[in-house]
């Protein structure tokens, strides 16, 4: 028997792990503190769940990991690659240079090497300008010392020839090993946002490779010969190789895993998910079992990007939130974070946290001490949390109709069972490890996001072509042929163009091929 799998989710405060069998039954779960090197925490969690479940290393078929390496590297400007940012599109686009809107320290951290060279296409696939091979070679040689390249060509979501050719030239000049991120594989129409996302991706490949290598080595060390996957932003999985090439797709995997896990545990396919962590509460929406995607530019490290990200609102309330009792009682956004076991009153510290209130009220039993808090403070704090959560739940709703609300995460106790606007409030079994469950049950997916000219084909043909390609991409990513479904089709007409161009986004997803 080798059909067990482990899902691991690394959060800012805790690393959670679960063991599940092929029927998706949960056999063991744990919450262990996240460690600074991340890998130690992963191994600690792994040991606990293997021990508890009695499943041996050899019986594991899959290990799935949701991690925050990439996000941390961006926020802390740590371990980022020096990137050669090449834009192909001159003479167009020269009025705004690459990285213009980046915070100075982040632009400096990736070396601020930018160039705008001849080339690019029009919206309808015509050539905007020819590329100048000699110019590209010279520029690439000038960037010879960078760690990675980011290549963005005007209208590459319509035609990627120029990005392909530049990639070949970089290979010829620098070699096969240098990581190259090409924009059409990362973002959609909107040059600056796509270029930003591509440059961030290029900056992260080294961090991603180190994290992946550490993960793979750790599994080897434990004698685990399972297939390894990383969770990505849309709540599906990617292979280790893919995660190294596209680390930017992992930056929101945590909240996405929670949404998927909460939907699975509660059997709510459409509704609102509230994930209460140590420092923040993430409110997201689940649509047909998948996290709803954000339709606006999402900022990462103060940089605007336009690739697929879940629609999440974070509020500063969690188990470690500091309770202010001066005047009106408020909870957060200041938090003791991972130092809960050191600073919170229930652990003998001197900071009153949201967790302390529940310990005082007797709803939970954590830590050696029982703080003395009067009932009116507990009630006021609960009311404060309820109001904040209700407001964000309402913001995520798509109509006035009451919808199911699922509460998950280690701090779930903070959120009351009655929420205005909710048809029903669920706190499913294993709510505290919903994120690890989410990554353990995740599927693999394939996506297409492209502009089609309807002069040459009908709208139906264009959609079918996008569906076929998305399905092929899902199969290539490892999906089981019988289980692949089209899970999302979106169509965006482009205004002012008589040529009837349309942007079509299609996503297919399926179970892992056993």
């Amino acid at each position, binding site marked *: 028997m080798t059909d067990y799998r482990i899902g691991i989710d690394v959060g800012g405060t805790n690393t959670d792990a679960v063991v599940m069998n092929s029927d998706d039954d949960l056999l063991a779960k744990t919450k262990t503190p996240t460690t600074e090197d991340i890998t130690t925490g992963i191994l600690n969690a792994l040991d606990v769940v293997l021990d508890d479940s009695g499943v041996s290393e050899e019986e594991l078929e899959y290990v799935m990991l949701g991690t925050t390496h990439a996000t941390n590297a961006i926020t802390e400007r740590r371990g980022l690659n020096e990137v050669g940012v090449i834009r192909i599109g001159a003479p167009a686009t020269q*009025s705004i240079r690459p990285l213009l809107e980046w915070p100075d320290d982040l632009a400096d951290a990736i070396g601020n090497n930018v160039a705008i060279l001849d080339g690019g296409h029009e919206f309808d696939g015509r050539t905007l300008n020819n590329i100048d091979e000699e110019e590209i070679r010279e520029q690439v040689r000038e960037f010879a010392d960078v760690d990675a390249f980011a290549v963005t060509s*005007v209208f590459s979501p319509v035609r990627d020839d120029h990005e392909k050719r530049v990639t070949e030239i970089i290979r010829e000049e620098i070699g096969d090993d240098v990581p190259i991120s090409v924009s059409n594989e990362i973002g959609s129409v909107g040059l600056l946002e796509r270029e930003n996302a591509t440059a961030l991706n290029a900056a992260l490949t080294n961090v991603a490779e180190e994290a992946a290598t550490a993960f793979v080595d750790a599994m080897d060390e434990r004698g685990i010969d399972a297939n390894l996957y990383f969770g990505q932003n849309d709540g599906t999985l990617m292979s280790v190789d893919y995660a190294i090439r596209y680390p930017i797709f992992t930056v929101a995997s945590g909240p996405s895993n929670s949404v998927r896990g909460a939907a699975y545990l509660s059997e709510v396919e459409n509704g609102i998910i509230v994930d209460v962590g140590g420092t923040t509460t993430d409110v997201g929406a689940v649509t047909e079992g998948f996290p709803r995607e954000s339709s606006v530019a999402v900022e990462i490290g103060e940089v605007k990007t336009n690739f697929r990200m879940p629609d999440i609102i974070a509020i500063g309330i969690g188990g470690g939130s500091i309770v202010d009792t001066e005047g009106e009682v408020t909870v957060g956004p200041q938090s003791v974070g991972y130092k809960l076991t050191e600073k919170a009153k229930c652990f003998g510290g001197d900071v009153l946290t949201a967790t302390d209130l529940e310990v005082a009220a007797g709803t939970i039993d954590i830590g050696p001490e029982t703080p003395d808090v009067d009932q009116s403070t507990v009630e006021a704090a609960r009311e404060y949390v309820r109001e904040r959560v209700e407001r964000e739940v309402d913001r995520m709703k798509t109509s006035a109709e009451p919808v199911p609300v699922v509460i998950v995460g280690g701090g779930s106790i903070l959120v009351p069972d009655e929420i205005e606007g909710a048809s029903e409030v669920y706190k499913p079994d294993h709510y505290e490890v919903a994120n690890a469950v989410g990554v353990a049950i995740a599927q693999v997916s394939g996506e297409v996001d492209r502009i089609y000219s309807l002069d040459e084909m009908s709208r139906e043909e264009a959609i079918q072509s996008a569906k076929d390609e998305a399905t092929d991409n899902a199969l290539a990513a490892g999906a089981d042929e019988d289980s692949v479904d089209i899970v999302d089709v979106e169509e965006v007409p482009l205004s002012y163009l008589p040529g009837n161009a349309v942007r079509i986004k299609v996503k297919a997803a399926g179970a892992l091929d056993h």
Partner: protein
Amino acid sequence: MSFDIPQLAEITIDDLEALGTGAGILGTGGGGNPRIGRLRLQTLFEDEEYPDSVKLVSPKDLPADATVASVGGMGAPTISVEKFPKGDEDYKSLRAIESFSGETVDAIIPGEIGGANSMAPLCVAAMADLPVVDGDGMGRAFPELQMDTFFIYGSPVNYAATTDERGNQVVYKDIDSAKRLEDLARAITVQMGGRSGYAFPLMTGEFISQYAIPHTVSLATELGRTVERAREQGDDPVKAGRELLGGKDLFEGKVVDVHRRNRDGFAMGSVTLSGLDDDSRLEIEFQNEFLIARADDDQVLTTVPDLICIVDNDTGAPVMTDALRYGQRVRVLGVPAPELLTTPEALDVIGPEAFGYELAYEPLPRGETGW
């Protein structure tokens, strides 16, 4: 009639964010995102080769015989965010109509203050070291060039030019109507790859002082500032903006449905909003811009040319038609149109019937201030 706002003497780098926000709100859902233009202008202001501010001149202060031209960008907003300008397209068009006419332009005026074309004239002014007239031809955004007050009030279509990023220039001379220029220039723009920089027509200071909608560059900037200030101070940014514009709250609610269709290259459709605490509804029809607002009993609340602005309920930031999505919490403002847009000759071109609606224009009540 005028707004109770300070008239700015110049635009500097510190004004750009506010101008972008204000121009976005006045864009009534269309006009293109001012962001690209703002970044282009920021780049020019930071470049030592160009001045670090652009002077504004009130329409009333223009010499009667001054020569004024309008400049901007033409094309699809979706293209402008992907293939943004080289940076000299509109400037070259300005030089092209000067060389064809033998005249020298003394000042530049925005054709439409709403949306992206609030910024391009300031860029050209910085490049040509010219002042910008504090005013425009729409006070908002409209989809076609014949819809500005310059053409509505009889400016001849004497000279025009469109230029692409490769430097290809097409010059138009003595075109028989503004609508014809729209059709010709639009066709050329498509051939140019969906975006061009334009300049047209040549007008006199006297004409501008009569027919430009005055002080709209200052208005847009002050509007953006008012919204930002309220946001920072924890006041209601939407209310602050509405009060400045002398507008009316038409609705507060959530987007529950968006219908889109693409006809003749226009982003057409409708958006339905639902009340937060009740089942009241508002439907707004759009053709690039928001044009008609109807209550749930089919009663028409506001029609073009009055402004229908959708803004984010919390931040007061403008919401454009292409960004409308389920669940957004928004407020809808109705703002009385500038008086120059409400005359019979203006309504022929930009009234509800001009957009295909069998409706009479019922103006929103005007307050003490306005335009």
